């Protein structure tokens, strides 16, 4: 019978062609718009490091003076240099790394290449194993390199290829600002989305191309990027060890809840020690958020992306109501035919299925159309002025989701009209007015 219903649907849809096109277009647009925005949201709200999102914790302490203190508030967003360096030195977590964003001018010796600026990160050795950074050549630098303030650098594949035309560059010198550094590792294509470990940089940006040991970057006074907040101005250098400024991120890896709890205790004791030493004035205020909680707390997904999704879903709703209305119209217009079919032995269920399959066919065609529109929509998003533009790609689950959304929506839209259609009484249509 399915084949028969399908054939009937085909005939019926061809008969009221403009109405059919209207319904398909409505479903297609609704589904296309929804899937475009949902795909963007799906990308933006992705877990950047699923294998470790509960093991990695962002650490915050409260080093500010009592002035302006209000109970119950959040501690400072970032760390002072003194706290961050101390905690890394103490090495109480499985892994830990302090870091800040920066930028540097690369002055290649190669002919035909002008100097250019790259985004960079000044950090410590465990950054690479902690964030599972993939290397195509070499490795990160060692703890010894950190201690020795070594002139070494890890660069991205893109930077290696741009400057040297190859990734086989381990041991090569690279001129960063005025300084020559030795390349120890080349990172394979690596882009965490969102850029969770430092939300002060472009959260959906391409990430850094250059990594230099923290100690080295301080010796050479390499430029830092990101926000810095100082609560006292009686210091000459805001980047110095004792300066009352927060500007450093500290991440720790703790692979069990017990370890996380122990580390939290450690931070509490550390804060108490600082208070006793007179360095901290406010009560102990320690935060440790794992990646998921940290991204949630900071509301990383842009409001506009969510708003667009709501708009698109609202649009789909109107398209569906529209389709319900049009299908109802269409089916009731066929009351005479339905009456005859009922008289000739079609049960209500048969009629219901016949009409629902017709709605389903609209859904399938609308789904294909919606898929094309979603693809076009994402193409348009990729040409939008946002840093996440190029990430807006339709992956397989979203592709299947689009199709499913179209078919399910149109079947839902078909339910009421089909039910009303199968209520047509067989007898009524026998009367010749």
């Amino acid at each position, binding site marked *: 019978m399915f084949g028969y219903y399908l054939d009937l649907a085909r005939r019926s849809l061809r008969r009221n062609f403009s109405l059919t096109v209207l319904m398909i277009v409505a479903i297609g*647009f609704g589904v296309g718009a929804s899937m475009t925005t949902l795909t963007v949201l799906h990308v933006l709200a992705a877990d950047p490091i699923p294998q470790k999102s509960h093991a990695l914790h962002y650490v915050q302490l409260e080093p500010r003076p009592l*002035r302006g203190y209000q109970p119950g508030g959040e501690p400072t967003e970032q760390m002072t240099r003194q706290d961050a360096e101390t905690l890394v030195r103490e090495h109480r977590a499985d892994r830990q790394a302090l870091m800040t964003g920066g930028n540097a001018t690369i002055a290649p010796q190669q002919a035909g290449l002008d100097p250019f600026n790259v985004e960079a990160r000044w950090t410590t050795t465990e950054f690479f194993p902690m964030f599972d950074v993939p290397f195509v050549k070499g490795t990160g630098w060692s703890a010894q390199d950190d201690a020795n303030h070594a002139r070494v650098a890890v660069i991205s594949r893109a930077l290696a290829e741009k400057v040297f035309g190859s990734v086989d560059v381990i041991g090569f010198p690279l001129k960063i600002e*005025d300084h020559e550094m030795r390349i120890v590792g080349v990172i394979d294509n690596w882009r965490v989305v969102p850029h969770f470990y430092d939300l002060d940089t472009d959260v959906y940006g391409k990430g850094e191309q250059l990594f230099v040991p923290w100690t080295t970057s301080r010796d050479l006074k390499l430029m830092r990027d990101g926000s810095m907040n100082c609560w006292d101005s009686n210091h000459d*250098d805001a980047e110095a060890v004792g300066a009352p400024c927060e500007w450093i991120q500290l991440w720790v890896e703790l692979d069990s809840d017990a370890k996380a709890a122990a580390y939290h205790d450690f931070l509490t004791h550390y804060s108490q020690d600082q208070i006793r030493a007179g360095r901290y004035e406010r009560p102990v205020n320690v935060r440790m958020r794992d990646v998921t909680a940290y991204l949630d707390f900071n509301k990383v997904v842009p409001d506009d992306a969510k708003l*667009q999704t709501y708009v698109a879903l609202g649009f789909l709703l*109107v398209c569906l*109501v529209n389709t319900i*209305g*049009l299908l109802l119209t269409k089916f009731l217009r066929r009351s005479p035919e339905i009456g005859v079919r009922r008289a000739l032995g079609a049960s209500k269920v048969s009629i219901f299925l016949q009409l629902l399959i017709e709605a389903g066919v609209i859904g399938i065609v609308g789904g294909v159309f919606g898929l094309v529109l979603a693809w076009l929509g994402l193409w348009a998003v990729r040409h939008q002025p946002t840093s996440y533009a190029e990430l807006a790609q339709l992956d397989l689950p979203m592709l299947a989701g689009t199709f499913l959304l179209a078919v399910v929506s149109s079947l839902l839209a078909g339910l009421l009209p089909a039910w009303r259609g199968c209520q047509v009484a067989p007898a009524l249509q026998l009367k*010749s007015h």
Partner: protein
Amino acid sequence: MDFIPIISTLRRHRTAATLIVLEIAFTCAIVCNAVFLIRERVNRMDRASGITEDEIVRIQLTGIGQKSDPGVITRQDLAALRGLGGVKSAAVTNMIPFGGSSWNSSISPIPDDPSPPINVGTYMGSHDLIETLGVKLSAGRDFTPGEYLDFAATGSNIHVPSVLITKGIAERLFPGQSALGKPLYVWGKQPSTIVGIIDVLARPNDWQGAEGRTYALVMPLDIDFTTGGNYLIRCDPARKVEVLAAAEAALKQVDPNRLIINRQTFGEVRRDFFKQDRAMAWLLAGVSIALLIITALGVIGLASFWVQQRTRQIGVRRALGATRGDILRYFQTENFILATAGIVLGMALAYGINLWLMGKYQIERLPVEVLPIGAGVLWFLGQIAVLGPALRAAAIPPAIATRSV
């Protein structure tokens, strides 16, 4: 036109009528909110910077490696820029309105203020910064050349004797009184004196939300280009492009070992800063138009069905003396009733959506004047959409009545 018979007819087509009312209501609710959001975005994009935008260009640059004396290079740069044709004045600055990256300070009118700090954007630059920006002073005076201190030599561990503040922050700090001459604690324990009030000077970004947008101050701290990174040039509006090219060449001549990061007219800076808002406004407009079209087509579909279904009835009415105009008005009135029901429901929904959005985002209450716009659009749309089917109905000949179906 008598509404009662039309309404009783609609009651017999309850499902279809309900659907069309719902569709109109949803469309009305979404379009009202979209219009409101578009208006908000447009207002945002129209926000005043306070500077003479059409005369200003900027060059953002960075040095390569450590410079031995960036202050000297900066003075040479500025001299070269001021000497270019069409240039009225030039200054180095740490940041520009709508430029993105910002310097900020916490300020207070009293020392060791225990209340939560107020955050303001902190401009500094060479001595003709105020003149180059072209900001208007509503009270007080610009800095005198003697007031300027060398920031590179001292850093922020310094007593700044005088500051200029915007009217926005002046009213926040000293409501109902003149801020002029009052002390302000910015950096350190020593207060600075407020010597002038700037009408408007926008901050580089929205970091501090809507409230802090107008909060800015200017300090008489002479900086070099490695701190500031921005050269602002005020010039003849007709020669902006030419001046930019000449300025870049001049800077390269002073010290070629530098990297130009940005070279823009202020118009381009503003466009870049608000590009997301513009994209969002267009998206909302596009969706609204698509919604209105879909709804209009839905109205046409339903009206056509009803005309077809009532063909015989219409013929009988015509045979009994109804004019074409009567038939036309019948369908128009019917659509008016449906649209009105949809609009009333839509208004309530619009407010509901608005409240929900207010809970989630920094959005204001839906202004009442948006509602009549939405209502008008949907009434008009409904009448346009129903016109075709209604005219077809009016064209039904009375002879239909005597024909068997």
